[in-house]
């Protein structure tokens, strides 16, 4: 009796397991297992157009005030709205406003401290509630409220008040002339949904809308976000703008690069980005189109200069050493060999911005190791003790070079740079850290423990504003969070930085930026390695696709899916 029951039980388990693992015995009817083909019906129903995007990072929050994460910010283009978007050349185009404020049209006051926005007629939230100036006021108020742990209170903290004389007029009062005003209001939050939450909880931190923004103002509306798996957005039936052609955007979170590439080449995704450059040929072979779009960011080297003569290798305080480094690294070769020629070498920190901000354009230091050696010789940096490394006054040109370890390209570039600097007598010790360590307030970069720091950075895109190099930003015991990790105090640069942020007239500001550009170039305060664009892989089904660096999905309503 017992032996039979045991045998039958084992047998039953085995059968059940094999059925499960075989995918429930032929649930499919056609050549694909994964793409279960719908059975033919009597009346043909238009096929739902679902575009699948593959993101390799999951959102942290969907509330625009609570995140700076790129993947979350770009997704806001689908379901949220900004007063203005940016086109493929990163030029502003009106979205919620009737026209872009300017001095000429009188929407920017003479003193540059007051900006007036005129909202379009018929703006609606997806729940059919009008979007008004009150939503702008609420967004600003919440972003500067100390009870909310928003990701960044800047540039809202520069606004001293928001007037709403009528539902279609927003008047922004800044604490002074504020040139980067275009970077405000990247995402509007619905007052009629969130004000009651704030009134009840005293904070927006715990609002369900942060992870389930079911009410939005973009061409799509949020449907679902399953943690770790996917998020989906369907057409906003109450959208006040151009209705999108694709019915649903399905975003799948795939953290592993190899899996991301496999999914794209297997046709399991229509769009993706943030993949290693060396995978591009594989994607092209699979028929995907590769598109690049400047983001304003550049990968570059930040030198620990420390004008107080306390930190780092003293050699880096010599501009000729920095120039020699610039000439000793074959940056064009790096771009050609490691980045497959998909981008260029930036001559300045602002190179990735539109040409307007790079006028006159600068010409890169050439790759000339012999000239680099000559320059070091002339400056007294010679190998006096025969150890293979140049030295001067007892100081060896022995530098630490650190970056983050999540990027394969960076590791490869580090190895190339080490080899090329060794060829001119500069010894380099490579270091790599996780991002949360490298960029920590008490991390190696902030505390002056790395001579050459590498990461991708840029101004307040698409605005040229920078703040790192104020003398007041040098970290101290009383101000450990300072952002000037080069410990560089250049009074001329300091004055120009403070001036440009107040110049609301772009022409005047451009002249200031050009002067800053020239200082950076002449003194080699920063050395660009490559312009860091967004690189997109677009599947064969997607049409009408354009990207912008500042607001990638600005024309998402024009995108379509075709069957090939």
């Amino acid at each position, binding site marked *: 009796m*017992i032996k039979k029951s*045991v*045998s039958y039980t084992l047998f039953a*388990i085995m059968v059940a*397991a094999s059925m499960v*693992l075989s*995918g*429930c015995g032929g*649930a499919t009817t056609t*050549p*694909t*297992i*994964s793409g*279960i083909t719908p059975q033919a019906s009597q009346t043909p129903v238009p096929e*739902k157009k*679902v575009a*699948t995007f*593959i993101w390799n990072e*999951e959102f*942290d*929050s969907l509330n625009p005030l*609570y*995140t*700076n994460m*790129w993947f979350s910010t770009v997704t806001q283009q689908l379901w949220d709205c900004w007063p203005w978007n940016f086109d493929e050349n990163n030029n502003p185009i009106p979205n919620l406003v009737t026209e872009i404020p300017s001095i000429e049209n009188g929407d920017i006051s003479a003193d540059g401290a007051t900006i007036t926005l005129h909202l379009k007629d018929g703006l609606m939230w997806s729940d059919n509630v009008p979007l008004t100036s009150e939503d702008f006021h609420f967004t600003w108020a919440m972003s500067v409220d*100390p*009870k909310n*742990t928003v*990701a*960044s*209170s800047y540039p809202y903290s520069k606004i001293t008040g928001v007037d709403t004389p009528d539902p279609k007029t927003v008047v922004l009062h800044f604490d002074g002339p504020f040139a980067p005003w275009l970077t405000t209001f990247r995402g509007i939050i619905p007052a009629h949904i969130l004000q009651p939450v704030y009134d009840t909880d005293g904070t927006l*931190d715990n609002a369900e809308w*942060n992870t389930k923004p079911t009410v939005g103002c973009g061409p799509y509306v949020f449907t679902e976000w399953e*943690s*770790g798996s996917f998020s989906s957005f369907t057409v906003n039936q109450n959208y006040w703008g151009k209705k999108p052609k694709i019915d649903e955007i399905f975003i*799948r*979170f*795939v*953290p592993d690069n*190899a*899996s991301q590439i*496999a*999914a794209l080449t*297997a046709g*399991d995704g229509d769009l993706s980005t943030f993949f290693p450059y060396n995978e591009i040929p594989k994607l092209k072979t699979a028929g995907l189109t590769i598109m690049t779009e400047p*983001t304003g*960011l550049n990968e570059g080297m930040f030198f620990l200069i420390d004008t107080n003569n306390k930190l780092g290798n003293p050699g880096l305080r010599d501009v000729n050493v920095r120039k020699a480094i610039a000439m000793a690294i074959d940056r064009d070769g790096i771009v050609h060999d490691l980045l497959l020629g998909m981008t260029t070498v930036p001559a300045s920190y602002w190179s990735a911005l539109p040409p307007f901000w790079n006028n006159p354009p600068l010409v890169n230091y050439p790759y000339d190791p012999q000239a680099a050696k000559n320059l070091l010789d002339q400056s007294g940096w010679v190998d006096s003790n025969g150890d293979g490394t140049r030295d001067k006054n007892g100081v060896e040109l022995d530098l630490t070079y650190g970056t983050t370890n*999540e990027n394969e390209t960076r590791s490869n570039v580090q190895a190339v740079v080490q080899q090329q600097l060794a060829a001119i007598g500069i010894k380099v010790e490579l270091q790599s850290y*996780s*991002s*949360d360590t*490298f*960029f*920590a*307030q008490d991390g190696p970069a902030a505390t002056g423990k790395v001579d050459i720091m590498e990461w991708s*950075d840029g101004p307040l895109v698409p605005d040229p504003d920078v703040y790192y190099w104020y003398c007041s930003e040098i970290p101290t015991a009383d*101000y450990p*969070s*300072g*952002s000037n990790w080069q410990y560089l105090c250049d009074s001329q640069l300091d004055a120009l930085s403070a001036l440009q942020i107040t110049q609301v007239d772009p022409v005047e500001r451009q002249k200031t930026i050009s002067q800053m550009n020239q200082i950076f170039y002449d003194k080699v305060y920063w050395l660009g390695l490559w312009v860091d664009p967004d690189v997109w892989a677009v599947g064969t089904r997607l049409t009408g696709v354009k990207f912008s660096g500042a607001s990638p999905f600005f024309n998402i309503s024009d995108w379509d899916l075709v069957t090939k």
Partner: protein
Amino acid sequence: MGRYILRRFLQGIPLLFIISIILFVLMMNMGDPIATMGGRTLTRPEDRLRLTRQLGLDKPIYIQYIYWLVGNDWAKVDLNGDGIAESSGTRHGILRGDFGTSLVNRGVPVIQVIAERLPNTLLLMIASEIVVIIGALLVGIYSALRQYSAFDHFLTAILFVGYSMPIFFVGLLSMYIFSVLFKRWGLPYLPTVGMFDPAVGRTFGQVVLHMILPVLTMSFVSFASYSRYIRSTMLEVMSQDYIRTAKSKGLPRATVLFIHALKNASLPIVTIVGLDLPFLLGGAVVTERIFAWPGTGRLFLDHVARSDLPVVMGILMLIAFAVVVFQIITDVVYAWLDPRIRFEA
């Protein structure tokens, strides 16, 4: 037995307390959660200061541990940075069931963050464990009964190949063969990533299809150890006198095998499985990442990378608690299977 279980649970409390202190100190030194909150550029200094204060990260480590343990609703905190602690804290501490809120998904309770992923992990891991145990039993018993046969040698070789290969390699290789190449060759192919095809929706069949590759990947690398244990214990048991007696009494082969031999041979397996079970909660970090499976393993990895201490501590303490519980369960089951063991002090 009741007293024994109660005593073991009471012994587990100080153990968990010590584990929590060690993990907390280690995690506090992992990295800075504020460092990566700036997006593609550095977190602005004023935001660093504000967030550090608002999230309580400016407090000494022992204060942060106490707040994590017993909450801070009895203390005042400074929200606006004026140096005056004017607002009451809102945390209750894990001793009162509050694991805090995620720093990454700000405002979302840790319990919710973990609970959203746990069912997916259990689905994948239990399926994998079942496949491994059944497969290992079949292979182990067969190999023991046909010791040194050609098939035994063949199985041994295959199993050790699987055992020797890194799981990420097996996963990516299987994905490339059964998804990419099969599709290219016009054969029925398996999905690469996720839990279902968005064009079809989340159906039972879709989830099962998407489980095939990750389950087989995990099973392939785990078969070897389990099956070798079973093989060796079965060989040992099959040479015992009582088995010879059972055979000489004329009992059917299946009875001798499954009733007399396997029960005794399974004792070491119970220990191994019992100790493995709590780690099912932690998910399969590599497999979940490769197949984009939304489980706790990936959750752990994602949140460690951003130094999200509350979530990471929540996962680790959950596993630590499960280890304590499953060790007790294992001991009880072991004693139930082996009458020689008694619950005596």
